[in-house]
């Protein structure tokens, strides 16, 4: 069985989620999460509590002047509701400098198109170290 195409609705949810992240609106981002969700950013501890997610998102947003997710690809997998995205994420630091970093996210959506798993694979350290990969 080959992977089905990403459903228009799943793709729409993911695009809307990134738009909420780009708006740096923690409440709007949290609204995409299922009651039973797991969020994990890199090697950080997983988060499965919505208030902890809001707090993390609010603190992260406050550390930046801007954020933009540029979707490079959205890959369906053969597991229902599981979608992989490859992105360039453009971060504007508080000093106004911009750094762009590659990122890979994996999402699992339930039958109501709520996000049950949101995992981010990337190296965020250059954003806060003031260096870009060469």
């Amino acid at each position, binding site marked *: *069985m*080959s*992977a089905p*195409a990403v459903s228009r609705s799943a793709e729409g949810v993911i695009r809307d989620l990134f738009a909420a992240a780009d708006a740096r609106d923690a409440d709007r981002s949290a609204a995409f999460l299922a009651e039973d969700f797991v969020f994990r950013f*890199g*090697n950080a501890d997983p988060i499965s509590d919505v208030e902890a997610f809001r707090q993390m998102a609010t603190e992260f947003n406050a550390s930046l002047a801007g954020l933009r997710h540029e979707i490079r690809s959205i*890959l*369906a*997998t*053969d*597991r229902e509701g*599981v979608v*992989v995205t*490859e992105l360039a994420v453009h971060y504007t630091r508080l000093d106004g400098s911009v750094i762009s*970093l*590659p*990122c*890979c996210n*994996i999402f699992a959506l339930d039958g109501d198109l709520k996000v049950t798993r949101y*995992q981010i*694979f*990337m*190296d965020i*350290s*250059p954003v806060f170290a003031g260096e870009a*990969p*060469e």
Partner: protein
Amino acid sequence: MSVNRDASLQAAGALRRAIESASPEQLNEVYAEDAVIWHNTDLVELNRADIVAAVVGLGAACDISMEVRQLDATDSGFFQTQEWTFRVPSGESLSVPSAFVVTLDEDQRVARLDEYVDSAALAALGDLLAGSSGEVPAGVVR
């Protein structure tokens, strides 16, 4: 091109075995001749000879094992998350999580592999290898 799940699982298993063995013959078999291997930490595209040399060098410095956490077929290959474990002769080891986005060619060989990993983990690997042998294999830890 559409790759079926069986072909993806087979290719993923062959890739894991080749990397764990650090065998140049196996590695040359799983990667296409014109394969491109890219890491998010340096954005450098390695060719097959580069990655084979890097994995062989790494395998000479430590034991490599890979525990696959998730493996899903995509239309062009597979997506896999894993926990690498690198164990040096002194017994010290380091675990590093990462994700692969793999494109397979028509012969089910790896045509492109994008690996996403945290640079802090790679720095720790560099420290582990340097502490063990004083040398860090080129091409792996950047």
